[in-house]
């Protein structure tokens, strides 16, 4: 990963600041270089059939809990489970910075958040290439809406993500390494763009996540 792949406006969004002075800009540049040098992003994904039972959708036999995921996957015949991690090296980098220079730690943390997003986007592109005739929904993760965090172990198990990319989940549902994402993407033969669905279609007014979404534009 190179610093050019990162989005400075998005990083500023995570930092909750519209601008940075020269000292902080230089520090951010350094954080971007450091993170890119340390990161070995890993990802895996696999497509599975979706089935509709009386009780709701199942993915490869796994019941998907909550009503929001049902809405999200409307009209989809299969779904991809994807998992991405920046690896333990990034956690270690941020941990070390916290013991030494909190400013650097906060900058690295924001850069890492953006880096995960960028890796997710590249995985989505890969998925698109493998399914040229399908429409893809936005990414949908455990913890969105009423799709519970408790689904996390099942999603990892479907992918065997521990063996394949070293991604694990704690008993309280937290991904470790920390800078990691799992998500579902629905695949359908018909267009699925629908702002009622979760995930960023940049339709904030209609999005149920608008109140605490880190990606929404900062009110100026």
């Amino acid at each position, binding site marked *: 990963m190179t610093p050019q792949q990162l989005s400075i406006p998005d990083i500023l969004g995570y930092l909750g600041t519209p601008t940075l002075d020269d*000292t902080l800009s230089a520090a951010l540049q350094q954080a971007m270089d450091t993170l890119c040098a340390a990161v070995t992003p890993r990802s895996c994904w696999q497509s599975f059939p979706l089935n509709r039972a009386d009780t709701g959708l199942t993915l490869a*036999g796994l019941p998907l809990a909550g009503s929001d995921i049902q809405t999200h996957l409307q009209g989809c015949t299969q779904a991809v489970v994807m998992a991405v991690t920046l*690896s333990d090296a990034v956690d270690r980098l941020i941990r070390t910075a916290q013991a*030494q*220079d909190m*400013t650097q730690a906060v900058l690295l943390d924001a850069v890492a958040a953006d880096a995960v997003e960028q890796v997710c986007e590249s995985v989505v592109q890969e998925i698109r290439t493998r399914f040229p005739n399908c429409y893809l929904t936005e990414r949908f993760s455990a*913890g969105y809406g009423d799709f519970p965090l408790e689904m996390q172990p099942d999603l990892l198990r479907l992918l065997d993500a521990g063996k394949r990319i070293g991604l*694990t989940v704690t008993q*309280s549902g937290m991904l*470790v390494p920390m800078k990691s994402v799992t998500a579902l993407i629905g695949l359908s033969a018909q267009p699925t763009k629908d702002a009622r669905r979760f995930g960023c279609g940049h339709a904030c007014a209609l999005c149920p996540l608008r109140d605490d979404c880190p990606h929404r534009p900062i009110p100026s």
Partner: protein
Amino acid sequence: MDFSSLCKQDFVFLDGGMGTMLHLAPGELPEALNLTDPKRVAAVHQAYLDAGSQILYANTFGANRLKLHGSGIDPTESIAAAIRNAKQIANGKALVALDVGPTGQLLHPAGTLSFDDAYDCYRETMMAGANAGADLIVIETMSDLLEMKAAFLAAKEHTTLPVLCTMSFTETGRTFTGCPISAMALTLEALGAAAIGINCSLGPREIYPLMQELSQWTTLPLIAKANAGLPDPVTGGYDISPEEFAAALLPYAQYGVQFFGGCCGTTPDFIRAVRQVLNGVSPTRPALEPKSAVCSGTKTVLLDRPRVIGERINPTGKKRMKQALLDGDMDYLRNEAITQTESGADILDVNVGTPGIDEAAVLPQAVRAIIEVTDLPLQLDSSDPAALEAALRCYPGKPIINSVCGKESSLASILPLVKHYGAAIVGLTLDENGIPASAEERFAIGKRILERALALGIPKTDIYLDCLTMTASTDPNGPTETLTAVSRVRKELDLQTVLGVSNISFGLPNRPLLNRAFLNMALSAGLTLPILNPMAEGMMDTVRAYRLLAGMDENCAAFIAAYQNQPTAAPTSTASQSDMTLESAVVHGLRQDAARLTAAALEQQDALDIINHMLIPALDTVGADYEAGRAFLPQLIQAATAAQSAFGVIKQTLAVKQESQSKGKIVIATVQGDVHDIGKNIVKLLLENYGYTVIDLGKDVPPQTIVDAAIAHQVSLVGLSALMTTTVGAMAETIALLHAQYPGCKTVVGGAVLTEDYAQSIGADCYAKDAKATVDFAKRVYKED
């Protein structure tokens, strides 16, 4: 048939994928089948036996308490059934291995699982396997060297079975948690594995260069259990055929690989193909030069040139370090670890021995804190066997123990630990009669220590001798005797040599000059492991120059890397030095300037004046800007970091008086189950800036630990952080427990998922939307007092 006779064959054939063959239904756990459908598992064993597998891996890969949590399956029952099942099929024609995989949880510091919990979990698994009659144990697919060590020790301490160990590597030659091949080999050979190798993750072509590398680091027989190539995300299938798989494995026979099997995606046809390809092949392996090396879980240090052992983490003669240990201030130790790492140390000595400290409790705690922030291997420094053992258990990798000496009591208590835990050892050349004056006698004691260690099976490459630096001012012949002894140990015994360098100049003026001169002489005499302060002027320079001049720095690369970008002038700051005030340095977040100006101010003013009239007002300015939307989080933290460096200078000056200036004590923690602690650490930074003493319990802290600390320190305020919806429950539980056992104590809570309403509903006294709000609440609490 038993394992040792099987090992006399050129090649031993393992089995292939189990999950692949079981055709599991969605959500079906393989370990459940041992009890519900053993015939399905038996059919797989039978197929592998028919294909020529000589060791069958029982269906126990995930049969551990942590992995099976919530499944309703009892690991011991599942294991007993699995071993019985496999043994019936094997029927004396093959051996049956207890197959042990990861817990699925990452150990501290990457995750939340403690070494002890991992060990307990594996102990149950290992005992169940041994009781059920397994012929051997295989521990496989490990990524974290510490988890591997927990499993290995559980096997070694509770069974007598041979243990095979394999880990999973990525193409970079490291596991997912960053363990290099060399560190796996060094650690597991020293611990006593019967064979080691690589399984899963990659196909045989990708693993080949990794196996070549592995053969350079161990004399143990090697194991290869590759996947059937790489998986396809759409079909879920793997991409190479049995014939391709076998052909790719053929060259492995020239690198010491004796055990051949398959992992994900492989079937009995793969094993058949491998047997066929290796039929008639004679195994060989490249000659291996014996070498000394130590490692952490993520870094190996080869002792092929002088390597520096950083001495800073040691309270002897260091007031500030002593105070930090008494206060349990692990951040101070972490900082010393980081600074020494950045200064170029290769190994860090860790010594926590000081009156009032329970070494057996604090040494492992210090080790855990230090490995959070550095990759460097550690030297565990204590004369207390209990402290050493506690630290050895939870240390990932192969450490150095400092030290054993020629006394019988020391030899008898320390050397068995070295052997059991697979460490290297420093032998001090002194005995019951004290430190001999002559080189001759020190050499003789060293030789005796060497012989005793060798007799226990500790390899020569892991035995280092310290011929003891004597103070030059007390004995004019001291330095010469020490150097003569070093030189003889190096030449005649061919061992690594250790010396604490700076003792030479004790009691004399211009110590740095003497230290450097002695270091030069000692390196020339054959010193390979100087213990020194890597930040002290000229010491690292001397070592780097010596390495270059002694032909140990290929192409002068390390020297050039260290010095080519060295700035010619001191770093400049944005404002000119003369007109900058301490306040503006803090407001603008300039750390070095803040520290420099504080040191200058301390010459004329009282520390409290500086804090109350310069630092706090500066922080208030930034705080007000933050609240008004003129400054944002990064600026706030930057200012706080600058203030922190100013406080660091003040603390250094009055290491003892700090208690009297504290505005109050506050316990803070990230609640149990939660590992996101950056927010909590920002709060800590700000609270400390405002003069509060923060007792930071870290992350993933159980409710009772928090309450106990609040009571022990008699605090009026506890701060709790939680990031996830799944962990706010632990927050509620902590508050309830606090109300029950320590009523009257106030609580402030924060974290991404919390809201004002939720905070109220769990009984918190304050919801802090950010770090600044926590400080404001702390001010209210401590004014009410």
